[in-house]
Structure formats: structure tokens, C-alpha cells
């Protein structure tokens, strides 16, 4: 009788041990989620969108694996833990990459803004030198309109820059720079033709 009881207990312990040999790695999940959130805050979705999408996809895969393990009688979270650790490292890397890219874009916009302001300043000095006859003529109207458009675009780009929307500012300032350079070349061409020194 005593032996029967012992054997029964052994069987129960065996089942219990086998069915609960792994615990959901909640701490690792929380850490990975926090790291992804940090990457999101670092605007990884804006500056390194492909890397960020891959990171989220990796987390989805691991979460599905974990949930699948939870469905099983014999749970095994070891591989998921390893993957979560990798995700944590990757998320930190993605956040760092986003930061680097953001700084690069910021520097590019700063350079372009400085460059365009120099061109605008030069245009401001050149335009009054245009031949007197151009006053009121079609070309001067175009130049005036272009100058106003470039000025407005620079103000808009500066506003986006100040708000920290460096990527949006970059697109705007790139277009404005092309326009300002074109305008500068046009004015210089007119001045050269009109034999006016500048």
C-alpha cells in the first residue's frame, strides 16, 4: 500500500515537473519592449524605418513563440529568452543608429540652411544691380516671385528644424536650395549679359 502511494506521488511529481519546467520570461519581454519603446522615442521609425520594422517583426515572432510555448504541456522558453536578449541588443543598436542618422540629417539641414542663407544674402545684393530697365519687366517679376518663394520655403524649413522634424526640413530645404542656386545663376547671367560687375 505504501509503495502504491509512493508510485502515485512520483507520477504526479513527474507530470508537474515536465509541465512546468519553463516560466514565461516576463522580465526579458519587458526589457525588450522597453528597448523598442526607446528606439521609437529615438524616432527610429523616421530615421531607420527598415531596421525598426525588422525589429518589431522580430519581437512579434518571439511573442508568438512564447505564446505557443505557453500552449504546450511541456514549456520551453530557453530559445525565446536568447532571442529576447538579441532583440534587446538589436533595439539598443537601432536606437543608436536612429540617433546617428538623426544627427547626420540635422547636420545636413544645418549646412543647407547656412548655405542657402548665404545664397539668399548674395542674391539680395545682386538683384538691386540688375539693369534698371528690368524694373517692372517680366523677368524681374519672376525673380521677385522666386525670391519670395525661396524665402517662404526657408522659413518653413527653419520652423520644421526648430520643431525637430529634420527629415521634413531636409526635403524642403533641398528643393529650396536648388531653387536659390538656380536663381543665383539666372541673376548672374543677366548681370554678365548686361556687362554689370558683381
Amino acid at each position, binding site marked *: 500500500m505504501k509503495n502504491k502511494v509512493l*508510485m502515485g506521488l512520483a507520477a504526479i511529481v513527474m507530470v508537474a515537473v515536465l509541465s512546468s519546467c519553463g516560466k514565461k520570461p516576463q522580465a526579458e519581454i519587458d526589457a525588450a519592449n522597453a528597448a523598442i519603446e526607446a528606439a521609437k522615442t529615438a524616432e527610429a521609425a523616421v530615421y531607420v524605418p527598415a531596421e525598426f520594422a525588422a525589429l518589431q517583426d522580430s519581437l512579434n515572432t518571439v511573442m*508568438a513563440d512564447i505564446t*505557443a510555448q505557453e500552449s504546450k504541456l511541456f514549456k520551453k522558453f530557453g530559445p525565446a529568452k536568447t532571442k529576447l536578449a538579441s532583440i534587446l541588443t538589436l533595439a539598443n543598436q537601432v536606437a543608436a543608429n536612429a540617433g546617428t542618422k538623426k544627427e547626420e540629417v540635422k547636420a545636413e539641414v544645418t549646412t543647407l540652411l547656412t548655405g542657402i542663407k548665404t545664397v539668399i544674402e548674395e542674391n539680395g545684393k545682386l538683384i538691386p544691380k540688375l*539693369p*534698371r*530697365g*528690368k524694373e517692372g*519687366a517680366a*523677368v524681374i*517679376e519672376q525673380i521677385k516671385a522666386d525670391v519670395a518663394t525661396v524665402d517662404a520655403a526657408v522659413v518653413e524649413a527653419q520652423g520644421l528644424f526648430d520643431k525637430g522634424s529634420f527629415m521634413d526640413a531636409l526635403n524642403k530645404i533641398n528643393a529650396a536650395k536648388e531653387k536659390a542656386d538656380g536663381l543665383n545663376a539666372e541673376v548672374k547671367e543677366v548681370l554678365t549679359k548686361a556687362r554689370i560687375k558683381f
Partner: protein
Amino acid sequence: MRIKKFWKRIIILAVILALVPVIIIMLIRLVPQPPQEKVEDARIALSEAASNNADTYTKKLYREAKSFYDSAMIKWQEENKRFIYFRNYEEVVRLADLSARKARQAAKISRNSEVDLNIFLKQKIENLNNIVGQIDKIFTSYPLSAEVWNRISRGKMLLKESEVAYRKGQYAQSKVKVADSELLLTDSYEKAKTNLKEYFNSYPVWKNWVDRTIRESRQNQNYSIIIDKYSRKCLVYHGGTKKYEYHVELGKNWVGDKRVKGDKATPEGMYKIVKKFGSNKTKYHKALLINYPNETDREEFKKEIAKGTLPRSAKIGSLIEIHGDGGRGVDWTEGCIALTDSEMDVVYKIAMEGTPVTIVGSIVNIDQILD
């Protein structure tokens, strides 16, 4: 007896040992199968949709797919909380299937949308650049209003922004910019064309003057000068045949006929050279004075005064010349026609008092210009 008891125990133990794996296998087999494959399928489909920018092109469908996936995961986790043999994954499978189907649909639409949008944007940007080219070609020296130029300028800037976004593969942003640009450019272009067409309403009259001038040059075997204001050309004919063609610079407000003194317009009509000024008689190298205002100009001027379209104090202009000192690349005169000094030398040499000078808006019709 003892031996018998011993063997009995051994048999019981063997039976138990034999039954344990059977029971375990049965226990395992009876566990409902988790919907891992279905959820994985949905995740892959979602990932594919995301990489095809479904969030941009088919936002609603993609969000639905994502929402179904999240619901499937939540439902799965809820089921996992129940006793293992009571779990039912049917709803999880249904949600995962829905998610996968919608995600695949979103990916397909996005793929096609991206390809279509790429083609659409490429064509649209090309078309708008053609419009910009037309505007630059036709209207660079045509005085349009400041408002129209502002709209054109903003349209050009948006087109540039659209091109920048297009080059970076940001098609959705490019599309928005291109649409705004199109609105500004096409509208301005149409307004400018309407304005130009109105000016060209006088074309039949101009054509008549040009034909008469060339015909008379042929009949009289003399030199005639035709000024085409729109294309900035000075055409010198002899015996009805074109001998020289030069670029000219005009008055700042060259569009339309001259109406009043000081309007800086170059007159339109059939004139004659009435006086030649050598280099010591003019500050513009050499000059040929024409008989502006002629009888027709005076009548028109009087009519305008009578109608009140010009104030009574207005004076008719005079001293319209073909002269040198040109080649500045801009319209700078007070209404005269300027040639470079070397070209002026040629024209001055062949011109005499009485040489016809016909000034028209254009020698070609509007369709040829716009084509």
C-alpha cells in the same frame, strides 16, 4: 509464497511503467494543438505588407490586418490561461486567418499601388516639367501679373519638393506635392495662355501689315524692316526676300500698342523712317527715327481721350527709334527698338528716309507659339 508475492509486485510495477508512457502520450495527444502555424502565417503576411508600405497605400486594410493579428494574440493568451484540455483555439485561428488574408490583400494592393504610383508620378513630374518648360519658353519675357508669377514660382518649388521626395522613394509625399504643384502650374499656365491669346487677337491685322510690307518690298524692290515684338526679331527684307534677322530689345511694357507718352510701350503699326542720326547725333550709337505717331495712332489716341479711357491731360508719345546700344539681354528702352552696335551699322547702312518699318506683335500665330 514470498516468491509469488515478489513476482506479483514486479508485474504490477512493469504494468505501471508500461502504462506511464502510454498515459503521457495520450495526455500529450489530447492537448489541443496551438495555432502556431496560422499565427506565424499571419505574422509573415503582415511583415510582407509592412515592407510593401501598406501602412501608406492601404492604411485601412493594413490596420485591420494588424488589429486582427493583435486580437488573435490576445485570444490565444486568454485561451492559454484556461486548463490545458479545455482550451479552444478556433477563434484564434479565425482571427489569424482573417489577419493573413487582409495583410496579403494589403500587400498586393500596395505593391501594385507603388508600381502604379511610381509610373504616375514619373509621368506627372515629366508633364509638369514640360509645362514649366513651356512657361519659361513662352512667358519669360512676357509681362504677367505678380500674382501669376507667384503662383508659378510656388508651383515650381512644390514640383522640386515632389521630385526630391520621388527620388527618395517617398511616393506618398511626392504625390501630395505634385498635386499641389499641378494645381498652381496648370492654373497659372492657363491664365497666362488666355492673356497671351487675348493679345494675339490682333494677329489678323498684324499678318495683313506684314504681308503688305513684304509684297510692297517685292513690288518696289526696296528694303523693308519688320519688327516682331514677341520673338524679339528685326527682319530686314529686300525685294520681298529676307536678308537679315537680328535680335532686338524693346520697351519694358512691350505687350500691346503704345497708347500714351511714357507708357514704355513699343508701338504697333506701319511706319516709315523719317530721319537718320549718325553716331554724333545720338547717344545710342546710331538711330533711325520713325514717324510715330502716324495718322492712325493720332486717331486712336483721340478716340481713347473721347471715350475717357485716357485722361484729358494725357499726351501722345513720340521719338520712337531703331537704335544701337542693345545686346543687354533685357528689355530696357522707353519704347524704342535696340540692336547691337554692329547690327545697327548694317541696318543704318541699308535704311533710308522712307524705308518702311512695320512693327507687329508677332509674325506667327498663337498656335505655332503654343505648339
